[in-house]
């Protein structure tokens, strides 16, 4: 909504120590259960994912930890990227379906 500053978004994301290409914990600043649980759901829908879970390490710190582990040699970065894209696609479908249903309803009323 505001002017886009990629650096601001860059600084909100960290990979926590101890990561490997197939298992990593990400930390996002200023995110909560809203994104955490939704993202966990779509990532778990990916058959390449062995485990995905999230936690808010402390309630008074606005931080979200997201853990992903993948099967075989699938990259966690690609899995996260796919998860975000899938969630965006889902949002588009919800908007389209909702707007369509709303148009139909308004047409019925008038």
């Amino acid at each position, binding site marked *: 909504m505001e002017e886009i500053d990629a650096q601001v978004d860059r600084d909100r994301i960290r990979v926590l120590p101890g990561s490997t290409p197939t298992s990593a914990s990400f930390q996002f600043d200023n995110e909560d259960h809203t994104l955490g649980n939704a993202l966990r759901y779509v990532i778990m829908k990916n058959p390449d*994912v062995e485990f995905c879970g999230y936690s808010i390490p402390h309630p008074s710190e606005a931080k979200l930890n997201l853990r992903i582990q993948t099967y075989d040699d699938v990259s966690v970065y690609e899995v996260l990227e796919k998860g975000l894209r899938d969630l965006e696609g889902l949002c*588009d479908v919800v908007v389209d379906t909702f707007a369509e249903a709303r148009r139909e309803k308004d047409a019925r009323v008038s």
Partner: protein
Amino acid sequence: MATNAPRIPSQEELEQRRRLQVGPETVSNQASTDFPGHWPGENHAWNIDHFRETFRVQFHKSEPLDSEFSLIGIDTSIANAFRRILISEIPTLAIEDVFIRQNTSIMQDEVLAHRLGLIPLAGNRNALNWMKWYHRPTEDNQNSGSPSDYNCAVLHLNIKCEWKADGLKLAAQGETDPDKLFVNHSVYAKDLRWTPIGKQEEIFGDGRPLEAVNPDILIVKLRPGQSIDLLMHAFKGIGQDHAKFSPVATASYRLLPTIDILKPIVGDDAKKFAKCFPKGVIDTPVITTEDSQDDLELQGKEGQVRAVVKNAMKDTVSREVLRHEEFKDKVKLGRIRDHFIFKIESTGQWDSEDLFLESVKLLKVKCQRIRRGLDEMNK
């Protein structure tokens, strides 16, 4: 399994998986299981086309400030994200800074300022969309973030309570009704005056001016000689920062209740059964010969009434019916896991259905921002 072809569960099995069972003291089968690897041989990978085909929206009530609709075929985590965004992340305009020149009312300055902040404001929707965030001046740069036409709305409240011309005389005669004795003895939200600054005049245009949603909100009471003179700055903010910025009075969802009558409930039992539920949930029609032909258990009971489910959506799932011995094994209560009945009550700045669309867009923006940060990180 002989082949690697994915197993397709029967429609009946899928129906069963969508059901939560509600017992007298327990709720079972709550967790969704539509993940790859949960059911052997079944494909539950994310598929946008499948989602597009199965996701449905139904409207139940559409009023500008109160809407009710169902989202069917979506996971709880997503529905809950929409609800959370509705409550705490959609921006609205609210009074944030109050500059008090005069306040001789009995209400302390800070209490008065707090009350002013909580008044829901409304105005031309497009103009409000045009307005941006306000950034407070920082410690190291005092000149940064000055209020301007694109991020700040200025309102005034200037009011003085006085005796009416014959007020003193009436009071001496024992009159106590403030309406007859004083002018301006109650300050209402309609007394707030908005002054357009800069381009605001042009952008708000002929649309709704900035004003309180409800003109009759009582702010404070005055008595003769007391006056209030203050200036207010309204900024954009989100509910996460302060509840006054929340665009909704409530935004909530519940799962669609189900009532399954397993064995016929007839006669006085049917009437008692209907009384266990809110009005309109259970109907008690008279058994006809046609009914008894269809159902052997109803034979010989023609002319009596029987209980049928009319509208399960109205049920509150009080579980009263499960307390009665005679209905044991005759009824099963449940809920549908992926049928969310949303209820959104707007405070007036947004249309309640627009609010939902906005919440979905905001979830998408969140994803895009994370993805942008991720791209930068991997560069």
